[in-house]
């Protein structure tokens, strides 16, 4: 207990010193500057927190440093952009994705059958790989012929930048539809299902031992059948769905975009964990290289699909009102006119960037906190962080919890990306910057501590924004007339400096556990 108090007192003193610094720094500013800077700090902190929280959950339970987290944040942003700006592309992509998932989800059923086939282990492996590769090869053949309406990076009038601009101007014209030309629709749909099914048989053959005890029941068929049905329905009603997506309010469309981004993140996370991370649990160096490599591959894919130039995800109507009673001076004005800005302490505050994002950050913080502290799965996670074997010895499938946590962590990062996209814009470098901020935030807060991730992210956001602000107004140096203006390069450096100071005094971060 005594040690506990001493450790906490150190953290409290350190926090007090940081707060005093921020207070002194704020003294030279006007009230509205301080307010806006603090709100921006909260905003950046919230987005950083979403990435850092996922990182910390994954590291805490799985001991995996997921260095792809930055790229997954970026993918979340680009997926959100695609759904929001090009719903037709999203609808076109939906069918193949669902059918492929349906094909692969059959592997649970093949598993039992595969375990009955008697083959020498070597032959089994060879057959399995032949099936997997043949399936994937045929799948690629079909996919390249599958019609998907998409932007054109080489043609400016059809580039993402132009579509962003049009969406921003409220010009929501449905682009030309892609049609089945190179392949017949029936063949394409059947092919997607069958080829992914073939790969699934291969995968099932590889996992013979794991499937030995699995039972086949009708419940296992529900998921593949459901995916198949939805996929085919989307294909049939493609045109009307597209028209519907273009006709709904941009607020609803934005919500759909964010939800799709989160689901993509969760799906990618689950896929990563089950296929790539799982075989490497006892090899941390390989995990690092793997996640780093995946991050780079993801970055290249993003550049190839969406291009290098920067563009924005336009804000939905709810945050773009101008004129009339805008900027709003009270809440009723804000809600009736959907103002993009609001006057606070005489300063103009952007509603989406500086109010909405922090609120979402706080809501997510509370939700994840409740998940950890009040739900059974949270209990299992907290126990598993300490002793996986014991949790497993209680009859709990820890692997499934691992997959879930990894998926949740990646989903949070993707959520962060989609949330930040209307405020910070989309560039292929957005992930790297945020990964670094998130890592620094975690080091400051304590690597496996969830509240630490929140506190660290907030501090990183605040310090960055104060440094940016001082870059504009300068810090008056005491006893002289000189003014020190930190250059933009000092913004990231200042967070690193804070990290160094914190780690020198508290090697486990502000709220980290000693381990």
């Amino acid at each position, binding site marked *: 207990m005594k040690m506990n108090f001493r450790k906490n007192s150190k953290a409290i003193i350190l926090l007090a010193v940081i707060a005093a610094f921020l207070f002194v720094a704020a003294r030279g500013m006007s009230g509205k500057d301080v307010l806006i800077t603090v709100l921006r700090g909260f905003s950046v902190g919230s987005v950083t927190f979403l990435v850092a929280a996922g990182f910390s959950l994954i590291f805490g339970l799985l001991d995996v440093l997921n260095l792809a987290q930055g790229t997954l944040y970026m993918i979340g942003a680009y997926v959100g952009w695609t759904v929001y700006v090009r719903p037709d592309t999203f609808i076109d992509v939906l069918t193949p994705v669902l059918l492929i998932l349906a094909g692969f989800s059959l592997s649970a059923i093949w598993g039992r059958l595969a375990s009955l086939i008697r083959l020498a282990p070597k032959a089994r492996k060879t057959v399995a790989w032949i099936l997997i590769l043949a399936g994937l090869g045929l799948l690629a053949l079909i996919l390249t012929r599958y019609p998907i309406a998409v932007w054109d990076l080489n043609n400016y009038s059809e580039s993402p930048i132009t579509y962003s601009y049009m969406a921003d101007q409220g010009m929501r014209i449905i682009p030309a539809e892609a049609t089945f030309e190179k392949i017949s629709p029936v063949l394409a749909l059947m092919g997607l299902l069958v080829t992914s099914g073939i790969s699934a048989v291969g995968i099932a053959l590889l996992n013979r031992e794991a499937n030995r005890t699995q039972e086949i029941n009708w419940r296992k068929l529900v998921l593949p059948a459901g995916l198949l049905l939805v996929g085919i329905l989307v294909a049939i009603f493609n045109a009307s769905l597209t028209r519907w997506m273009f006709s709904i309010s941009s607020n609803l469309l934005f919500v759909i975009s964010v939800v799709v981004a989160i689901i993509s993140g969760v799906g990618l996370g689950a896929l990563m964990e089950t296929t790539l991370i799982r075989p490497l649990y006892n090899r941390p160096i390989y995990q690092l290289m793997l996640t780093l490599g995946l991050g780079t591959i993801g970055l290249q894919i993003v550049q190839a699909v969406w291009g290098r130039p920067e563009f924005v995800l336009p804000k939905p109507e709810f945050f773009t009102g101008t004129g009339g009673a805008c900027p709003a001076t009270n809440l009723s004005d804000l809600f009736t006119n959907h103002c993009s800005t609001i006057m606070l302490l005489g300063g103009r505050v952007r509603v989406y960037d500086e109010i909405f994002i922090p609120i979402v950050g706080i809501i997510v913080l509370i939700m994840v906190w409740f998940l950890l502290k009040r739900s059974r799965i949270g209990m299992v996670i907290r126990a598993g962080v300490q002793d996986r*074997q014991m949790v497993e010895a209680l009859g709990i499938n820890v692997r499934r919890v691992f997959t879930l946590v990894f998926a949740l962590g990646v989903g949070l990062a993707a959520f962060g990306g989609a949330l930040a996209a209307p405020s910070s814009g989309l560039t292929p470098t957005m992930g790297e910057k945020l990964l670094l901020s998130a890592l620094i935030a975690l080091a400051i807060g304590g690597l496996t501590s969830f509240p630490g991730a929140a506190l660290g992210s907030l501090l990183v956001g605040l310090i960055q924004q104060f440094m940016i602000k001082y870059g504009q107004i300068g810090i008056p140096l005491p006893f002289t007339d000189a003014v020190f203006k930190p250059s933009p390069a000092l913004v990231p450096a200042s967070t690193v400096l804070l990290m160094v100071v914190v780690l020198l005094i508290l090697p486990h971060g502000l709220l980290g556990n000693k381990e």
Partner: protein
Amino acid sequence: MNNILEVKNIHSFINQYHILQDVDFVVPKGSITALLGRNGAGKTTTLKSILGLANVRQGKVIFNDREVQGMPPFEIAALGIGFVPEHRAIFRDLSVEENLKIAERNKGDLERKKTFIFDLFPDLKKFLHLRGTELSGGQQQMLAIARALVADNSLLLIDEPSEGLAPVIIEHMIDVIHQLSEQSTVVLVEQNFLVASKLAEYFVIIEEGKSVATGLMKDLEADQAMIHRYLGAA
């Protein structure tokens, strides 16, 4: 079938180390069986092999007429095996109540077993909202045993129940384990021969990864030469 558990000539590995090299014994239903032997002989690994926490590469583990070797530990445990590990493994971030609740296999397990568990361990009831690791050593051991009782387990594997406990508490522990054995079969590892002899009806002696002797505890008690040979001074 009278035996709830049969361990048949198993060879087990932890990482690349070949720890068990032919362990073979049976556990009759409703009995208390003690695994005895010197430090590092492979007693704990034997318990872990039953649960699948150690890798059984040869031989069979049969629980309730079902071969369980090679199955993932959580599936084996779910068949009805409770585990009380060495050093208790109380979850420090969980309250006493959560430490019990996490062991539920069906919703409401804890609710059903509450009276039974708190009759055995009245202390736990008082400290339900403390963190697990704020309890004393004896109370932590009680909690670890209680945790194994939350789900319906027909077999309890208990590793070193008396380790680090005061004599008075050990007496209580012996009492508790006797009460438990009325409902479940118990296999325990015990360094303290006096405690083991008070508890168990059957014994298995493990020496350098092999089971070298099995039988009735009362026969072993009478055989000072054997005690001396395998267990050192009793």
